């Protein structure tokens, strides 16, 4: 193992960025002690359409396009020799999603993925994660001018998985990036969806759904960097928690730099506590260096299950367990329904039902 040369330190837990994370449960992904396997488990689930290619390329030929302050991202960059490169040619418009998946096993893996969406292309990319492994991941998403890309990241991990990731989008002029992060499995999941704009008229929509049960730690750290004029961003994350020691963390950092006139941003986080012993941390941060903006706001709420809703449904004959499931599905529907895939919606809702049924076992 080479000596690390990047300018970061192994986290101790006292850092602002790591104060919520249970470092002891990260299997050494954060401090370099883990031995990672030299393999790439990401693959296309079905044949790729014309104009789309998934290749394994030399990491040296695809250096990172941005500076990351994330410890794990820097370790990933330090270690990987190969990157998974997904390219979508210019002007390609896809009606069906590009479906990628990886199943992790007991051997820890570091994965660097680069997605390049060509000029005026339009696509949806699904990255599906299953299994019980340990994964350090960086996904770099480059959207060329006028490109539109939806990235759906699914954490359908088994119970012992550890997943630390940064998903960084570079959104250029008139490009539209939409991110969906769904975390419904794993022991520790810590994902940082980060966005920077490089041209005016760009747009980023960041959605998330998470459901944590007994002992699970699910953390999502959003960072949107408004550094150009007339860009727009929306953030909406919804989470539910049930069972002892279920813990979720949501950090929403939005920076509006000097000169980012005409910025329009709003971020929202809602948490639903279904039982005692669960804890939801929610920290929205908005920093504004220019007054010449269209709008900037944030909201965060964490509330208990509404007994009035339960009573109303039960009073119509619906048994308590089904009523609870209906209310929870309803809570997530606002975001899950945006996935525009009935099959995927049902699969994720079913997983949430199943997780809920296991609480307290």
């Amino acid at each position: 193992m080479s000596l690390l040369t990047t300018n970061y330190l192994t986290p101790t837990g006292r850092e602002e960025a790591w104060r919520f994370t249970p470092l002891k449960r990260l299997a050494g992904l954060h401090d370099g002690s883990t031995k990672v396997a030299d393999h790439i488990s990401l693959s296309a689930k079905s044949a790729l359409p014309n104009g789309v290619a998934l290749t394994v390329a030399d990491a040296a030929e695809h250096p990172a396009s941005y500076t990351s302050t994330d410890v794990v991202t820097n370790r990933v960059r330090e270690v990987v020799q190969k990157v998974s490169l997904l390219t979508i040619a210019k002007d390609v418009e896809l009606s069906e999603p590009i479906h990628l998946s990886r199943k992790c096993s007991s051997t820890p893996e570091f994965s660097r993925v680069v997605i390049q969406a060509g000029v005026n292309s339009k696509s949806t990319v699904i990255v599906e994660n299953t299994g019980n492994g340990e994964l350090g991941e960086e996904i770099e998403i480059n959207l060329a001018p006028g490109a539109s890309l939806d990235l759906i990241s699914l954490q359908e991990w088994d119970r012992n998985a550890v997943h630390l990731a940064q998903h960084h989008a570079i959104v250029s002029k008139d490009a539209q990036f939409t991110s969906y992060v769904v975390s419904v499995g794993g022991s520790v999941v810590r994902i940082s969806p980060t966005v920077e704009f490089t041209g005016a008229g760009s747009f980023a929509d960041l959605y998330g759904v998470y459901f944590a049960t007994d002992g699970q730690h699910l953390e999502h750290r959003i960072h949107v960097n408004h550094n150009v004029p007339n860009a727009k961003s929306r953030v909406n994350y919804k989470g539910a928690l049930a069972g002892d020691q279920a813990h979720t963390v949501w950090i929403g950092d939005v920076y509006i730099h000097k000169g980012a006139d005409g910025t329009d941003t709003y971020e929202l986080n809602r948490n639903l506590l279904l039982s005692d012993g669960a804890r939801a941390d929610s920290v929205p941060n908005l920093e504004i260096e220019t007054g010449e903006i269209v709008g900037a706001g944030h909201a965060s709420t964490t509330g208990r299950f509404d007994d009035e809703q339960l009573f109303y449904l039960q009073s119509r004959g619906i048994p308590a367990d089904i009523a609870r499931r209906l209310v929870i599905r309803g809570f997530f529907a606002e975001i899950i329904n945006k996935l525009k895939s009935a099959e995927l919606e049902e699969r994720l809702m079913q997983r949430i039902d199943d997780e809920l049924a296991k609480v307290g076992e």
Partner: protein
Amino acid sequence: MGPNGSGKSTLAYSIAGHPKYLITGGSVTLDGADVLEMTVDERAKAGLFLAMQYPVEVPGVSVSNFLRTAVTAIRGEAPKVRTWVGEVKEAMASLNIDTAFSERNVNEGFSGGEKKRHEILQMELLKPKIAILDETDSGLDVDALRIVSEGVNRVKANSELGVMLITHYTRILRYIKPDFVHVFANGKIVEEGGPELADKLEEKGYAEYITA
């Protein structure tokens, strides 16, 4: 009938099993079965229905999904898709409810009149034995009052439904003819009579029943 604060809604919610009430004495039976021993959903399955004064919003749950889930629970089996769609459409049409209503979330953004019509729609589909209508007339304009009242009369005519109608006003009694009128004050029934009692209340008010 009874004045504000007399306990009419408390009685209704207690019978339905709202968790914020604890019943410390007395009994409630339906066809001989002890209602107080039942969970809220069991009461509904036994044939009890409460049309609420303030129906609750359930975000993200569509009216069609809600109705189907409720009917499945009450009838003990999922309704046949073919007949179900028609059944809902017909019930909605007779209550002057637009079919687009099915796709809206339960009570979310409904007007006062829409909420009340939605309550009666549920009653029509769930076919209870006894329905408690808690101030179903409040907040309704003349047209909505007529449509809702006709809905109640229709369900009553087509089934063995018994109705306990809670109201302040005699206005709704022009459309729904009571067999009995009970005056409720300070948590107790203080007078009973036929429809003529309602006329007397309209004229004289509740003053004589409210003791200091």
